[in-house]
């Protein structure tokens, strides 16, 4: 049981990391990025390519992945999402943006399928199969490293948002974009940056996953669903909510294997999420106004 709990926390930290990017994007721009899972997959392929063609060690690929994902995020927002949001600014329900990100996700997934083929790719590292034992708990080393990386990035991200000037500007835009505009903030630029940062954080999650997760164009989907579950559980736009939500989901998913075959653990999470959504759509830490 303790082992399962720890496993849940380890993987939950990754879910939380993925959810961080998603919740930032929603919190600042009110956009639900359906392409988040697919973009995670993209970051994993970038990491994979960096290892294979550039010979970088898995965690050093951050040097490539983070700027790349930031750039991709910046461009996606500038070229695709903002124009659509501007067109729909006088519409009550901007479903166009939803369909756009959904369409983008399907497009990207199938382009990668066409380019990389349907086979699973993976990288071998010196520590892929090693485990570490603390007390009665056995932990796979790659997952432990992933947890450490996720924790460090989460703390850095939090510090950035709270202490840096850009972080302050981003938070201001998230609170009230019109007032920020009046204060002289270049809001469209901030949107692009926020989207870029959201994807950069996502990229670190991808790097953390690559050492122990096989890569395939469709793996984005299940992570995306779990990320949405996490974000909605924690409350859209809430950073602590994303972290707590991620850990909770990881733990629930892991612990329910005591009673249910592991193939059904995802179903448990999904349907538990549905029930939760009906009771409290705002999530644990979210504001009622967003629901």
């Amino acid at each position, binding site marked *: 049981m303790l082992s399962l709990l720890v496993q849940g926390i380890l993987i939950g930290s990754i879910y939380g990391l993925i959810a961080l990017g998603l919740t930032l994007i929603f919190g600042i721009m009110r956009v639900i990025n*359906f392409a988040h899972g697919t973009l995670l997959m993209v970051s994993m392929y970038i990491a994979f390519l960096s290892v294979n063609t550039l010979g970088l060690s898995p965690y050093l690929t951050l040097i490539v992945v983070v700027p790349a994902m930031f750039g991709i995020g910046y461009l996606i927002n500038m070229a695709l999402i903002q124009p659509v949001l501007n067109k729909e600014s006088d519409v009550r329900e901007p479903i166009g943006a939803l369909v756009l990100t959904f369409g983008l996700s399907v497009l990207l997934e199938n382009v990668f399928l066409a380019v990389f083929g349907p086979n699973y790719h993976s990288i071998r590292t010196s520590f892929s199969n090693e485990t570490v034992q603390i007390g009665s708990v056995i932990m796979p080393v790659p997952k432990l490293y992933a947890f450490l990386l996720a924790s460090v990035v989460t703390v850095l991200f939090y510090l950035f948002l709270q202490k840096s000037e850009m972080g302050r500007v981003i938070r201001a835009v998230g609170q009230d974009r019109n007032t920020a505009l009046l204060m002289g903030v270049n809001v469209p630029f901030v949107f692009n940056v926020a989207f870029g940062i959201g994807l950069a954080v996502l990229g670190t999650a991808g790097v953390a996953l690559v050492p122990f997760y096989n890569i395939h164009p469709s793996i984005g989907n299940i992570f995306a669903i779990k990320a949405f579950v996490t974000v909605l559980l924690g409350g859209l736009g809430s950073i602590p909510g994303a972290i707590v939500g991620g850990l909770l989901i990881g733990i629930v998913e892991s612990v329910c294997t005591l009673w249910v075959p592991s193939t059904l653990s995802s179903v448990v999470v*999904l349907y538990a999420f549905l029930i939760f959504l009906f009771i409290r759509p705002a999530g644990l830490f979210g504001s009622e106004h967003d629901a």
Partner: protein
Amino acid sequence: MKKFIPIGVLGLVSILIPAFVDNQYILHSIVMILLYAYLSTSWNIVGGFAGQLSLGHSSFMAIGGYTSTLLAIHSGLSPWIGMLVGGCAAAFVAVLVGIPSFRLKGAYYSLATIAFAEGLSMLLQTVKRIGPIDLGGAEGLRVASIPDASILDFQSLSKVPYYYIILVFLAIVVFVSWYIDRSKLGYYLTALKEDEDAAKALGINTQQVKLIAAGLSAFFTALGGTFFVQLIRYVEPATIAGIDLSTQMVFLAVVGGMGTVFGPLVGSIVLTTLATITQIYFGGSSSGLHLIIYGTAVVAVILFMPPGHGIIHPILKMLGLAEKDGANKSDGRLNEAAAPSSRKDLVRE
């Protein structure tokens, strides 16, 4: 009456097609094209008219397909009756899921539909039997091949009966869409799609209206599910409850023009034909190719056309059939009403 000419021409052509097409493979492809047109028009009732973006609609196909097949296997019930039972079951489930889901706003609702469909797909793949009923698990179920099958068995070796069946289905669902669009229900749907709070303020029971749309949409989608199962004589969870079918229904309707009556039909015919041709020429194993085309088309349509518009709008303009009043032009713009100078029909003198 001028606007019915293209429909009349299309109808006439479509009745005559099997007379000219001998190749069973091509006929099968055409049947699939019509099936997708049917499915996306069904989706459009809740997705386009009501503006509720259901991204897990294939779950209703699964309910339809599994219901009719299980009833046929275990009680020998004719697939036609099983189809209607499946339709009612799907409508029931849609209403049941809709009651809590429709309280959620836009994206939350979409997420709920995805979660529901994914969950159903996984359940169908994992749970092999419920009591004495064998669900087939991930391998699915076969529809028994009946020798000398008649149309009453909903089976045939030749594709021609299937062609006419789906043609009739398509005509029915398009007619239902057209009728809804012109009815009071249609106006309620347009109202709640454009501004739900304002609609509620006007006294429209938006929850009830959404549930009606969802039920109708699910009913027809389930019928399509049974048809699909009878066509390929196989029901398998990964396909019939999968995200691929859900996605296609949405994309085809959006590209065609969601919220219009003929939009999904046009979108389906154009895109599916394009995809089928591409698949013939560029190799059949690349299963994702059609989705690349659809995905690109969706992104392009959303980026470059006004919200809610699809490829049917320029087509209608070219044919000179563009609607001037608001009934068919569901593009969600609130400022339509703020430009009264364009409404010359309101000025009587």
